[in-house]
Structures are given as structure tokens and as C-alpha cells.
């Protein structure tokens, strides 16, 4: 029972950062049909901004930390907005491969840009003192910071769901995702919604990067290390589904921890195995559908 609890709680800890990255990815894909590799670069910038610009590695108070996380996420949202406006918007009517290629180019650019500001050395950020250390949950030792991340992940999931279902911009974004041409014919400003979605998606990338910074080494490797796993989450959850991203992240996180516990030599391949299994059994993912966005 203890081992099973370790697997579940460990899996949840792993799932939350992945969900935060994947939710932004899937949101942008769902509305704009762009598979944005550069999301990994924005995620990396979120971590760098928090660590190097705002907190400089030192353990902050909880309030300062929260402020720094929010500021980092907002700056990354503006970076994403600039990319959306300057790069992806002009390419939106082209074949999906074109945007994919452009996003990969932008990822490489961002990975190359970071050392210009922060050098080649990796950085470390300490968590707020109140979140350092660990607590026991059902007899399992869990980092307090991980518990905070899990809580925040739930808040973000609920917030995103409410945003999409209850706000005018969310309803319009959903309409565009369902049938872009019909929504535009009915008066929805695709341009405005696209910008808003790109900003929100990028904000989530920045938030994920800033939040993960105290638990990892901050380096350019972050850009590509998590984006592949996040894509796996998006594919398992279903392209364009925020709920799917949440469930996909939990499933992949728990499977990864379970394999690590019971079949350690398979742990390194768990994401690929899970993804392969899902693609074979349910190619559209858990909540995915072959929507207008997907077929565009």
C-alpha cells in the first residue's frame, strides 16, 4: 500500500508541471492549430527570469516568490504575444507543417539567446523557506513545494475550465476551435481571440517555467527536456483538450513513477511506451476529436 501511495503521490508531483506546460500547448493548438515547439523556449525563459532577474537564487518570502512567479509569467506572455503576432499569425493560413517548422526555428533561437544573457552555466533557485523541506502525507514523504504545485495545478485546471466555459473570450475561443470559419461568419474576431489565446498559452508556459525553477537546475536544457514530455501529454489527452491535458499528465506521471518503482530499467522509456500504447489504441487521445483545427 505504501509503495502504491508513493507511486500516486510521486506521479501527481511529476504531473503538475507537465500539465501547466501541456495546457498552454493544447490551448494554442485547439484554437489556432499551431503545434508550438517554441513553447519549450518560453517555459525555459520563465525559469530563467524567476531565477536570474527576480530572485537571483536566494530563498524569497512567499509573497515575493508569488510576485516573481506572476511577473515572470507576464513577461513570457508578452514574449509569446510578440511571437504570435510577428511569426505565427502571418503563417496561420499555410500548411500546419510551416508553423511547426517556424516554431522549431523559434525554439532554437530562444535556446541560443538564453546564454547571451545568462551564460552557459546552469543556475539554481531556492524555494521560499516555508515551502522547503518535506511533509508526510498518508505516510509518504512529499516535498512541501510539490504539495504547493499540486494545489496550484488544481487551481489552474479549474481556472482554465471556467475561463473557457464562462467568459466571453473563452466561449469565442471554443467556437473558433469547433469551427473557425463558422465562428468568423458569426462575427467572432479571430484575430483578437488568437492573440488572447497565444498570450494565455504563453503565460501558462512562463508560469510552469517559473514554478519549476526551484526544483530543477535552470539551464537551456529545460527548453527541450520538458517539451517532448508535454507533447506526449497533449497527444494522450487529445489535441486541443485542456481536460485531456490534465488527465494525460496524471496518467503519464503515475505510469512513469510506477515503472520507475516496479521496472526501473524501463523508467527512461515510460513516456514513449505510454504514448505508443495510446496512439495505437486511441489515436485521437482521451478527449480528442478530429476537429476542424486538427484537420486544418
Amino acid at each position: 500500500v505504501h509503495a502504491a501511495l508513493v507511486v500516486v503521490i510521486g506521479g501527481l508531483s511529476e504531473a503538475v508541471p507537465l500539465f501547466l506546460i501541456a495546457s498552454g500547448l493544447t490551448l494554442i493548438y485547439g484554437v489556432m492549430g499551431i503545434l508550438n515547439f517554441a513553447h519549450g523556449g518560453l517555459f525555459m525563459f520563465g525559469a530563467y527570469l524567476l531565477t536570474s532577474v527576480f530572485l537571483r537564487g536566494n530563498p524569497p518570502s512567499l509573497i515575493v516568490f508569488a510576485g516573481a512567479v506572476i511577473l515572470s509569467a507576464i513577461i513570457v506572455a508578452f514574449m509569446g504575444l510578440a511571437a504570435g503576432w510577428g511569426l505565427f499569425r502571418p503563417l496561420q493560413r499555410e500548411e500546419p507543417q510551416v508553423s511547426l517548422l517556424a516554431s522549431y526555428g523559434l525554439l532554437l533561437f530562444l535556446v541560443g539567446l538564453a546564454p547571451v544573457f545568462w551564460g552557459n552555466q546552469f543556475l539554481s533557485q531556492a524555494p521560499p523557506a516555508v515551502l522547503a523541506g518535506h511533509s508526510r502525507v498518508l505516510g509518504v514523504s512529499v516535498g512541501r513545494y510539490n504539495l504547493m504545485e499540486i494545489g496550484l495545478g488544481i487551481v489552474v485546471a479549474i481556472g482554465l475550465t471556467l475561463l473557457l466555459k464562462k467568459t466571453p473570450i473563452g466561449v469565442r475561443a471554443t467556437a473558433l476551435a469547433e469551427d473557425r470559419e463558422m465562428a468568423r461568419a458569426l462575427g467572432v474576431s479571430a484575430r483578437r481571440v488568437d492573440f488572447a489565446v497565444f498570450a494565455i498559452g504563453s503565460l501558462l508556459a512562463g508560469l510552469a517555467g517559473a514554478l519549476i525553477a526551484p526544483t530543477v537546475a535552470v539551464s537551456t536544457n529545460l527548453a527541450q527536456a520538458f517539451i517532448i514530455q508535454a507533447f506526449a501529454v497533449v497527444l494522450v489527452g487529445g489535441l486541443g483538450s485542456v481536460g485531456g491535458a490534465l488527465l494525460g499528465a496524471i496518467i503519464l506521471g503515475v505510469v512513469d513513477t510506477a515503472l520507475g518503482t516496479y521496472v526501473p530499467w524501463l523508467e527512461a522509456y515510460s513516456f514513449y511506451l505510454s504514448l505508443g500504447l495510446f496512439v495505437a489504441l486511441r489515436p485521437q487521445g482521451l478527449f480528442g476529436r478530429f476537429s476542424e483545427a486538427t484537420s486544418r
Partner: protein
Amino acid sequence: VILRRFSIGKLLVVTAVALLGVAACGSSGQSSGGGSAGGGKTITLAMITDLTGVTAPVNQTAIDGAKVAIAQINAAGGVLHGDKLALKVVPDPTDPAQMSSVVRQVSQEGIKIISGGDQTAYCVAGAPTAQQVQVLDVSESCAGAPLTGPKRASPDFYTVGVSSYMVGDALAQTMLTKAPAVTKLYVVGYAVPPLEEVFQTVAARAKSAHNVTVGAQYFVPYTQDDFSSIVASLESKVGSDPTTQALILTTFGDGSLTFLKEATAAGLLQKFSFIGTSYDYYTAAVSLKGTAPVLYDSYQYDDWQLFKNQQNQKFVAQYRAIAGGQYPSDRSYGGYNWATAMAKAIDSAGGLDYTKLVDAVAKLHFTSITGQVSVDAASHQFLVPIVVAKMGGSASAPSGVQASDAEVIPGPQAFAGSFSCGQAFCP
């Protein structure tokens, strides 16, 4: 289909972004080895190394270490009859299979001495070509059976890189002394041959000496940046008595940092009476700003504060001047030794004749910061002293890291010890 529907303007946008990305990635950390200095000729040494990937930060410390040695040698009059040394840093290719063409390219530029790669696969791929084009290939970091064993990639390949067997054996001996009650070993490491060899050596030595068994082992790709699932798995596997459990960490750089942060947050490290590592813990420990957990590190330099001799003081001061105030680490010392050895080989060979250079390297013997350095004739392994020290965070230490309880094992002794493990994987 794309080209038919795609306007030229938009194609240019995409191409420009892709090119910008590639240019930005390729530009970081490069330096030129050309130009002449002073009145004599300039002899360029080339380091082919990864400048953008996971190992880039530690590779940069090796480059900086080599630069210090070259600056010192040039300041002392250079090599031969006043020729100056220069360093050219060449980014390694994305695929080891392309190493051959990179080595040829370097050779066509007239460079006669290289360190061909910083990972085994790259060194193995580049070494035969270096021999063919008569470029002396002495690696700054690669070691291990494919390069130093009887069937090595090139008979003319040498390495200053520290032998996995030597550091593994030294680490095992320290563990057996410091934590004699250990009965279970756990390992988290990168799935690359030299690092796996370190653990295999520790495990074999511990088993033969105290019948220590392996509890669980996790070897992950060296691109892995998240160890949370491994921390959770270990948490479920380790027992409750720390005195019987030891952890061997064979990651490096940001991987070590991430694992230690995640393991510390989960309270996992308290469950081991001995935690040992073998590859440049200093770099990760410094970034933790005085909070680094205490580990035993087995490598070649460990902490700059351990060596009080004048040579080290000069090395540290000059290193800090070129590395933005950072202190040198293991790989910095590796780079320093590499460039120092190459200068001595050039002087000893009386020039850049390939055959004479290869012969000269085989007979090298010099005093470095940590002690005597010689070369094993059979394996072509440089026998650098192995340093095992207890290292952890210290708020009062200048770099936030304090080493203590250090033992310096002379290279030949450490090398001989690594042969006595009695297992098939031993060299």
C-alpha cells in the same frame, strides 16, 4: 504542396527564423584559434566539444582551464623556440557519425593536436580519422574501455580524462571505510558507459570486500532533467536504517543538481549513511549557494581550496579572471592538464611531427597541481592523482562549498587498485 501554396515572403520569414535559431545556437562560446602572437609562430590546439547541449556548461569550464594553461605557457615564453599556443574551440556535430568529417576539417586547417570530443561515442568516432590524417588526438575528458582497452578505437589515442575504474575504485574504498555497515547500494546515474562503469566498479569492489548488494539502480538518458519519478521510486524501495544504505550518484552538472534538489525536498538523502559521486560535484554544489548536501566526490580536483601550492593559487586566480569570477572545477583542471601536457609533448617532440608527438605523449611525466602525472603505456591513460573528498555547502566558504576529509591517491596507485576488482568489466 507547401511550396505551391506558400508565398515567397512567408517562406523567407520561416527560413530567417530557422537560420537565426541555428546561428544563435552555434554562436555561444566559440573562439578562434587563428592569428599569430608575439614574434614566433602560433601553434593552435583544437578542442572539439559540445557547446550547446547538456554538457555545455561543464565543457566550458574545461575550455577555460585550457585557456589558463595556454596563457601561462605563453607568458613563460611559449613552446619550442618562442612559438605561442592558441586554442580553437570547435563545436561538435549533432551526430557522432559526423565526427570524422569534423576531424578532417580541423586537419585541413593545419591543426596538428586535438581533443576530439567530450563523450565516448564522439571520441570513438573521431579517433580513427585523427590517426589517418595524422592529427594527435588526446582527449581532455573521454575515457573508458572503448578508448583505453585492448581493442581501443585508435592505437594512437591518449586520454587525460580520468578513468572511470580509478574513480570508482577510490570511491568504493572510501565508502567501505567511512560507512562499514552498508549492505545495500543504490545508484542513480546517466546511462553512458563511463558513468555506468564507475558504479559497476563501486559495486564490484563493495561486493568482494563486504558482500554489499545492489538494492536498485536507475540509469537514465543524460538529457533527462526531471528525476521526480526516480526520487519517488527510491523512496518506496529504501529501508528505514540509513546505516546500511549507500547512494551512488553518477550524474553530473545540472542532472546532479536537479536530482539533489528533488531528493532533498523529499527527505530522501537522510536515508543514506554514505552518498558518493564521481564527476564534478563542485559545479552543482556551487550553484546551491551554501546549501549543497554533503557528498563524497571522487575525481581529480574536487575543490580548489584543497590544494595550497603556488601553482594552484596562480591557476585559481587566472581562472577566475577569465571565467567571470567563477572558481575552477574538476573539468577546469582537466582542461588545464590537457593543454599543459600538449605543450610538454610539443617541446619533447621538438615540433609537430605526428610520430614524434605520439612517442612524446607516451613518455610524458610532469608535476601538476594535485601531484605527479604520468602515462600508462598499455592503455594510454594519463595517470592523474585521484582526489576523494567530503564536500558540502558552507555559507562561510568563498564559493559556498567546503571540502574536507580529502585523500589524494597517486595516479599509478589508483590505476593499479582499479585492476584488482576481479570482474569481467575491469580493464
